[in-house]
């Protein structure tokens, strides 16, 4: 992974876990979350992680939070449309080198395309299904 700030958009369960791991690995990380309650919880749980209350689909908020210095933007909100918009702004407007976006509903996967600025799309349903099958196979569950 490259050095430089990683900007995580969305401070829910996934954003929180991602920010915590990045921080533990010694990376500089900033989380943007629009809900004040989530921001407060995140700040209390992980004092080392920088949290900004801001809407990640707002270009000026992204700029104010330092997106021009980010080497990675990870859009992991629970809203697929917002994740696409964040990735598009990050890549096409702010020229962020790496963009990663979370797919909540597999039916929306087609929106996550290099032409809209998404480098890596992570389909959570597919990922979890595969993880379950892998673990079942390791345990020797019949049929897996």
């Amino acid at each position, binding site marked *: 992974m490259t050095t430089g700030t990683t900007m995580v958009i969305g401070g829910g369960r996934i954003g929180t876990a991602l920010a915590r791991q990045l921080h533990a690995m010694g990376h500089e990380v900033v989380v943007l979350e629009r809900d004040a309650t989530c921001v407060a919880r995140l700040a209390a749980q992980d004092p080392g992680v920088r949290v900004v209350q801001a809407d990640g*689909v*707002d*270009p*000026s908020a992204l700029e104010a939070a330092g997106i021009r210095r980010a080497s990675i933007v990870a859009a992991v909100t629970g*809203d*697929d*449309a*917002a994740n*696409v*918009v964040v990735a*598009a*702004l990050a890549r*096409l*407007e702010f020229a962020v080198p790496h963009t990663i976006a979370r797919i909540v*509903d597999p*039916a*929306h996967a*087609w*929106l996550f*395309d290099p*032409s*809209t600025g998404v480098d890596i799309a992570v389909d959570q349903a597919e990922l979890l299904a595969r993880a379950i099958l892998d673990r079942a196979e390791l345990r020797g569950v019949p049929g897996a």
Partner: protein
Amino acid sequence: MNVVVLGCGRVGSGLARELEARGVEVAVVDRDQAALDRLGAGFTGRKVLGTVLDRRVLTAARVEQADALAVVTGSDEVNAAIALTARRLLRVPTVVARLYDPRTAEVYQRLGVRTLAPVSWGIQRLADLVTASPLSSVATLGTGGVELVEVRVPALLDGRPADELEVAGELRVVAITHHGRTTLATGASPLHSGDLAHLVVGVASVGRLSTLLAHH
């Protein structure tokens, strides 16, 4: 020309009917049947029931073959995401999105999407109207230094040429509405009492136009 309208709320349904009235082939998409019913019995365009984030729904509405797309659902995020994807991935030639936040317009313009913030636009327009002088400002051109205004031609200017209302570099009559018909004007075009004269005016010269009208 064929246009797909995504979202059939008040704006979407009204837009679809207006486009149809202009002879445009229209398809409308909404996830709510009751919303599609707003179009009324007179609407002959295609109605597609489904969520606009589903590619199969867009394909059913023939977005890939459309000349233009208007994205007017109630969600800024959905409108922005679909507009960007339609323009950049599906290569729809003209894409217009309704976004409530007007500050983002320039950014989306750079990304190939035209945007309209109707609430903000309406507020600007209302503010213009309530503060306007008897000269009714119709539009602000470019970055705001020039106004398009319309004035009722006073009786004393009846039969006079349009250039009586012109000052080089400050005021110019661009069109005249006479008996309900608007045509481009030259300096020699005759003015008639009660006509609507359409002028472009430098903002600094608005007072001068008022003076000219008062003197006539």
